[in-house]
């Protein structure tokens, strides 16, 4: 799922720190934004926009962090509104709902652990590419040179 690859160039100390922060950003936002799944997306988006003009390594990792948040947004929003409808409307708790929440928790947890791992690795200047998101980022984020 997670691959360590050689980046086009050796990132500098400052670059590694900023890239790592983009993942940390989403981690902190998860804690703050737990009840409202959109908060962590907004946090990574702001970070992404702020670093658009930064070096390739930083941009690359900001993009990967943003993309991974985007898919979680769909999963979590659906779960969030499902829960709201159970509390406030005549929906009831079904096995289907509980299964969805457990699946969502598994995916969130995987994402959470991967994010911590990636944040640590990028801090050391190691380039980490995720399954699907890494490939997608390679298409979206191109080197300027």
């Amino acid at each position: 799922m997670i691959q360590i690859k050689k980046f086009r160039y050796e990132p500098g100390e400052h670059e590694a720190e900023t890239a790592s922060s983009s993942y940390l950003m989403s981690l902190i936002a998860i804690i703050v934004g737990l009840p409202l799944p959109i908060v962590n997306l907004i946090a990574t988006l702001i970070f992404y926009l702020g670093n658009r003009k930064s070096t390739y390594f930083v941009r690359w990792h900001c993009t990967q962090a943003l993309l991974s948040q985007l898919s979680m947004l769909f999963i979590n929003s659906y779960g969030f509104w499902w829960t709201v409808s159970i509390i406030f409307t005549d929906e009831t708790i079904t096995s289907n709902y509980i299964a969805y929440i457990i699946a969502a928790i598994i995916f969130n947890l995987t994402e959470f652990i991967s994010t911590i791992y990636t944040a640590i690795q990028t801090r050391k200047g190691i380039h980490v590419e995720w399954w699907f998101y890494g490939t997608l980022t390679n298409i979206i984020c191109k080197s300027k040179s």
Partner: protein
Amino acid sequence: MKKIIIQGAITILLFFGTWFALTQIDWVEVFKVQKVTDKTEQKLGELFWGVFKKTEKENKNIHAVNSIDSIVTHICRSNKIDRETIKVHVLNKDEINAFALPNGHLIIYSGLIHNSDNQEELTGVICHEIAHIELNHVMKKLIKEIGLSVLISMTTGNGGAEIIKETAKMLSSSAFDRNLEKEADIKAVDYLTTAKVNPEPFANFLYKLSDKEHEATKFLTWISTHPDSKERAEYIIEYSKDKLTDYKPILTNETWEKLKEELKD
């Protein structure tokens, strides 16, 4: 590009696969969700029935109780509903009303029986209320109107008598929302036809009572709380059109007449 589509598809499949695999487990059973809900419902049923028992007079006339019981038992048996889950109570009151309380309590006012021209009309209304019970409309409505937390606090004795009284009153004098009413009407027609009872008088009953000239208008709780009676009558007729026509009465004519006679006193 191809690689990314495949990877994306696998990721999505993985999520739905996990979800699907997890749905194979009966989580409601695992977490005892049903047990908690059932217990709450049972307690609420007792609480609300207690309110009516205190304020109204229950009809204990053996003939009346047995006749109504025959109708309900017949409907339940034909439709494979557990008879034990429906607890019928006949109350002496002029209002034309019948309603369902949580946990299968079904309250019928003597005014309704008295104002039914034939047993099929009464059976139709009973089927409509049984449908509300079987489709779990009562708890849905309660949760929607007053919220689960208030309901649970009632069952733990923190509700306060006034709230319980008001909620019980709300259940007896207000309708469910349009969709739930229609669902119950359609289900009632199903129950009636499976039990070989003609659903047409049920529709006629709605027609008749929606007519403002009717002598009993001031007692018409069941109709005034169930809006658009004409429209309901129409779709009941429409839905029951292509059903079988081999209908049989549940009670004999004598029993029915005697029932009305007994309730007069």
